[in-house]
């Protein structure tokens, strides 16, 4: 690598660990799929349908007492859980109907934790939930297809496969994480997963862009060496951007409130893996698919005589 344009920082041999990394990714993806298929996601109200009532009590309240009273009042398999604090309660019921909140408050009675304040009441019909679920899935699949086509046109099909698989890898692992640990998957988490797709592809393209540039610029060196050089050059940016974004997500995690808690978790997992996968899934796969300098040398005008660009 004597003729590399950058001589100062030592080139990190990222690609040397590509096989173990690929194996790790494969194992994690498989594990996630197993978790999703066999353990299943804990679907939030948006997807499962049913009723959810958040109550704020003046005093701490015991979930077991509330659950028992709701059962006694004829509600079928009610679920009661603390929400953020001992005196906040989230109650989930299968049924819908008029005046449900009033009936629930009456059933709990005034002595469990004082007269509660109704913070929110949400009812989602089963049909809507199922449709939203399908819609999310289709959106992800079409997004993957879109990425595949776009990258194939802008770069080359080997890169396209790498990018699409990297995004799929991040999505599956993020969703799998939620299945494995039993965190609730609701509409905000879906939004987070969609953001992860955006983030992951963004990160991958930045790395690819440098790879493309180096393939055109560096005349000698094996594809692996060009890859290593590109990874090293973009490392500072990769760490800084994901660092900055993670800091923001941490702010959401700590002060965003209970509603954004799972959203933040999904983003942390997704951004972590999104950063990793740009190198160890997308680039490694492109390399394994045999990407060569000739793949990227097509347009002559792209030898880049930069001028007057903003």
């Amino acid at each position: 690598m004597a003729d590399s344009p950058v001589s100062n920082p030592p080139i990190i041999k990222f690609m040397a660990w590509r096989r173990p990394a690929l194996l790790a990714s494969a194992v994690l993806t498989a594990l996630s799929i197993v978790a999703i298929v066999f353990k299943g996601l804990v679907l939030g109200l948006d997807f499962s349908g049913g009723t959810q009532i958040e109550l704020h009590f003046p005093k701490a309240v015991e979930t077991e007492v509330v659950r028992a009273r709701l059962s006694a009042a004829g509600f079928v398999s009610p679920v009661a859980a603390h929400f953020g604090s001992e005196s906040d309660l989230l109650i989930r019921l299968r049924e819908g109907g008029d005046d449900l909140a009033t009936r629930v408050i009456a059933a709990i009675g005034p002595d469990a934790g004082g007269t509660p304040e109704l913070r929110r009441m949400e009812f989602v019909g089963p049909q809507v939930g199922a449709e939203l679920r399908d819609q999310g899935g289709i959106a992800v699949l079409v997004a993957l297809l879109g990425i595949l086509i776009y990258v194939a046109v802008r770069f080359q099909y080997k890169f396209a496969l790498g990018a699409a698989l990297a995004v799929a890898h991040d999505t599956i692992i993020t969703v799998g994480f939620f299945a494995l640990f039993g965190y609730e998957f609701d509409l905000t988490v879906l939004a987070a997963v969609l953001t992860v797709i955006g983030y992951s592809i963004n990160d991958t393209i930045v790395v690819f862009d440098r790879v493309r540039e180096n393939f055109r610029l560096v005349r000698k060196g094996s594809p692996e060496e060009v890859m290593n050089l590109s990874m090293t050059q973009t490392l500072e940016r990769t760490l800084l951007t994901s660092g900055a974004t993670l800091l923001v997500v941490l702010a959401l995690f700590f002060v965003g409130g209970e509603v954004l808690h799972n959203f933040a978790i999904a983003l942390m997992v997704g951004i972590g893996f999104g950063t990793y996968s740009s190198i160890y899934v997308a680039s490694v796969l492109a390399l394994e698919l045999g990407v060569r300098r000739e793949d990227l040398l097509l347009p002559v005008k792209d030898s880049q005589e930069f001028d007057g660009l903003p």
Partner: protein
Amino acid sequence: MNRYPLWKYLLILCVLAISFVYAAPNLYAPDPAVQISAQNSATRMDDAVLASAATALDAAGIGHFGELMTGNSGLIRVRERDQQLAAKRVVQQALGFDYVVALNLAPTTPTWLSNLKAKPMKLGLDLSGGVHFLLEVDTSDVMAAYLETKSTQLREALRAAGTEARYQFVRVEGDHILATFDTAARRDRAAAIAAVGDFRELVAAPADSDGRYLLSLTPGPKVIAGREDYAVSQNLTTLRNRVNELGVSEPLVQRQGRNRIVVQLPGVQDTAEAKRIIGKTANLEFRLEAKGEGLARESFEFREASDRREPKAWLERDLVITGDRVINAASGYDENGRPQVNITLDSDGGRAMSRATRSNVGRRLGVLFVETRQRTEERTNAEGVVEKIPVDYQEKKIISLATIQSALGVQFRITGLASPQEASELALLLRAGALAAPMKFAEERTIGPSLGAENISAGVLSTEIGLAVVVVFMLFYYRMFGLFANLALTANMVILAALMSIIGATLTLPGIAGFVLTMGMAVDANVLINARIREELHNGQTIQGAITAGYDRAYTSIVDSNLTTLLVAGILYVIGTGPVQGFAVTLSLGILTSMFTAIMGTRALTNLVYGSNRNPKKLWI
């Protein structure tokens, strides 16, 4: 060299100035308020009414200010948010049920800003508190009602043809109308009648069985789709009217997908009332009281049974008209001071009404109130667990059964209502238009005002912390260029807020999260540029050369990566509905604005600071 032409600086300044103006309204928090409007045109709503409402509030010790009449409604701002509900109660009591008193959030945008059509972003329900309904239009019922009307029309048409087309019976069977005749000649004459006019859209198919001659009429797929679409858009209009009657500020009534309608009422806390008015899938049916016995009659209960001798009455199966024909309705009192509703019909309705009543003076005309209700049924599912399943059913009850004194025309009145309140509610429902098809609640969310306020503060706090962290981080790492990036980031937020306010986007808590996240991702462009400049400096480039090369080389990366993300956002927008779409809009706008500020904005700053100096000693990066 690193100079920008003057017009680029001016362009950036212009964009910034405009963005500041259009983002500014978001800084003014709205006041809690109550809005008063008259129940009907007969009741006057003016400054005097407003003054008496204000007096009532004074008497109750509720602080208020800024009384204002706009058009036909008055607004009183309440000092304390906690007292808004109390204020509504007090005003309602003082003015009585001739007035609609609704909760409202009054904007505090200064006049000069609202003159420029600058308005704050709408807050989603999770931030403002309020109710959200997703209503599903039952389109199967639409076809049933359609076939019912057509069969009534067919009976009329056949009767008009006399013995030539005398039928045995005409009835709706599943998805078609079936008519039977005793001779083939009569059936064929009927088929000829059914081939023209109102019946052309039905496909007629004759058949013979066991000496009976049948004629079935089936609507084609185009007719079905058309009817369904009509029903949903009719319901949409009706809901809009009803929501307007509620007097809520900035309600949202929107079609979603094929057969759903979203209704959002920000600031509303009395969900029971909202649901009663919105969800009332009420319609009216006018039918003559049946004489004699036979298949052509049905029995119905009275809605208010208490003061009746008989609990039920028999009405004809044939409809005279339904509530869709009503164009105006007002509540009032009759000579004896009992509540009544004065009704005006459209010309078709008037004609049908006069035709039916002319020859039936002395008989009684029944008004049926049709409502879709839900009851819970217990069923045992496959796993042997008892489940409670909501089941819809239609309830039809008689609200009035009055003797026809003379032929009725386009105007008449309904008496026999239980209370003035019921009269005004019925008038409201009729005025707003009947629903063309029953609807059920597919989704219902109520967010209390305190939760909304907490969500806002959580959102604002995490935005502030997130911004602070990123700003410090960038400043520490890239010094002068970090400062440029931070300024660009701030500008980005202002422009994004302005754009979202201009297009009237709704801000939700996940939306704020997306907003915060865009900040994290927006610095990416600057990190790319700055990292590249540092790299070029390392490679021995001159300072000016490094700046130019840094920006130029990073440019392709930025555009490529952002275009891909934009593509993903576009796909989400096209495929998604509601919340997913909102998220896609925020994401796309964020990408576009961040590209503008991160590339052009920071470049302008860099050029301004370093561009004029031919050979700066050191780049603070």
